[in-house]
């Protein structure tokens, strides 16, 4: 049904420096929006839809209605705007909202901006804001997202006889990639020994198995491909996008090593793009925890279930491997400002497909981003391709 549609193009992309930032969420949104508009080199009066991806500006800093704030601050008055919250997958959901607006014809030019301001809260407070997405029967036990990761990691290592070191390879790889990303929270390499000797956080996972708490923002500008051709020669195209939802009660899932929503969202995105997993050249996956990179790369069909750890240790997912995963450094080293992450994943796809990634440049014309909310509760997968 999508074959004859005017495809949705990305004509502008930008992200801000992730890390501990002095600005509040409104300033972060404005910074990314302005950088995105500048990147696209269009007149802001063309923007008729604005989507702000954000999980918890109310909880973090007592600021609701931040989409209106962005429209005000960037002089986008008259544009339709909405805030998109889909927990950690807010960014991907924002991209999907923008895509829907263009694909349906409701908008001619949609600005998608994701942002989160988190670092002014303590780790315990920020962890609790995120944990508040859990069901009451989980929340009362003090369950956190990192503890879900520990539970899944133990089940994975046990079932597939994978060594603990295999997870550390994810952290080492993504930190190495982050060294070459000037926007990354961490731009420092770590070695296996450092990862494996770092403090235990959620046994068997240690500090370096987790992404940091970060502030940051990212933006994309979307329009139809026919319109994009008129304004720029450096656009790329969203060829597939899909979402899925699993039970948010993690213990209900029959297999703790399988994320059903990743499978569903991937199948839908592949079907729309007319692509198979083997045709993806590189991917940005939601490595909020190292174990998530294994689970997603298997549930997206890159590797057989239970084998991602072997491929990772063999270097298949390294920047110079057959299927580079997280050339940006991933959430692990780039940081994870919740609402910004899914947008920033797609920004990396655009940067790579334009050949503008500098030292972290990988080859390929087909990129995939998988943005995960909760512990696989809700997922958006986006396939972006260069125009030949």
């Amino acid at each position, binding site marked *: 049904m999508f074959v004859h549609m005017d495809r949705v193009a990305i004509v502008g992309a930008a992200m801000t420096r992730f890390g501990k930032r002095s600005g509040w969420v409104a300033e972060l949104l404005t910074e990314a929006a302005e950088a995105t508009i500048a990147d696209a080199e269009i007149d802001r009066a063309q923007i008729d839809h604005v989507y702000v991806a954000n999980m918890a500006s109310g909880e973090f800093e007592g600021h609701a209605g931040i989409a209106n704030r962005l429209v005000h601050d960037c002089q986008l008055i008259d544009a339709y705007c909405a805030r998109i919250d889909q927990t950690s997958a807010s960014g991907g959901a924002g991209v999907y909202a923008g895509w829907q607006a263009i694909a349906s014809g409701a908008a001619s030019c949609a600005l998608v901006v994701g942002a989160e301001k988190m670092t002014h809260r303590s780790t315990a407070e920020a962890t609790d804001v995120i944990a508040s997405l859990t069901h009451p029967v989980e929340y*009362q036990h003090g*369950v956190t997202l990192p503890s879900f990761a520990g*539970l*899944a990691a133990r089940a994975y290592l046990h079932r597939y006889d994978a060594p603990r070191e295999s997870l550390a390879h994810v952290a080492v790889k993504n930190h190495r990639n982050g060294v070459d990303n000037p926007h990354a929270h961490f731009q420092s390499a770590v070695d296996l020994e450092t990862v494996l000797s770092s403090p*235990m*956080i*959620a046994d068997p996972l240690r500090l370096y198995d987790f992404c940091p708490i970060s502030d940051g923002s990212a933006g994309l500008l979307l329009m139809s491909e026919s319109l994009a051709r008129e304004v720029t020669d450096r656009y790329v195209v969203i060829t597939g996008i899909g979402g899925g939802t699993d039970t948010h009660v*993690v213990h209900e899932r029959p297999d703790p090593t399988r994320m059903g929503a990743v499978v569903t969202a991937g199948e839908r995105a592949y079907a729309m793009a007319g692509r198979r997993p083997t045709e993806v050249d590189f991917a940005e996956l939601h490595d909020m925890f190292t174990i998530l990179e294994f689970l997603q790369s298997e549930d997206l069909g890159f590797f057989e279930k239970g084998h991602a750890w072997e491929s990772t240790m063999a270097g298949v997912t390294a920047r110079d491997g057959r299927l580079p995963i997280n050339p940006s450094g991933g959430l692990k080293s780039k940081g994870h400002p919740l609402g910004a992450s899914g947008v920033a994943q797609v920004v990396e796809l655009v940067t790579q497909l334009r050949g503008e990634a500098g030292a972290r440049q990988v080859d390929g014309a087909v990129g995939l981003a998988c943005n995960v909310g909760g512990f696989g509760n809700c997922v958006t997968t986006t396939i972006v391709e260069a125009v030949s």
Partner: protein
Amino acid sequence: MSDDAPAPTAAEYADGSVGYPMHPIGPDGHAPVGEVALTGRAGTVETWTESTATPPGVRAPNLLAIVSFDLPGGPVRMIGQVDADAVAIGDRVHLGPPTQLREPDSGLRPTAVQSYVGHRFVPDED
């Protein structure tokens, strides 16, 4: 501490399936038709973790497990704190008495919204 925490029960649906917690609408598209008590049953530890970075009002470290109870309608899984120093995959456990799991009003959800009294898993005697 408190006896106002209802004992955990699995919901039973007309198609014979079971699950915890109760869904207002079950997998068969209808409201549950019954409940099955999980207390007094032995369950098996499927996986566990010990969390050291806990949210406000939660014990640290916090030993947690996903436990599977074999019911006639199928396996029912539950997550919860473990009342022990250590646990292993395959261990047999049962639900202990009601206890304060987290300090009231320490988290984002007020006690009017969220009960903080519940049941921990206790390892079975060998």
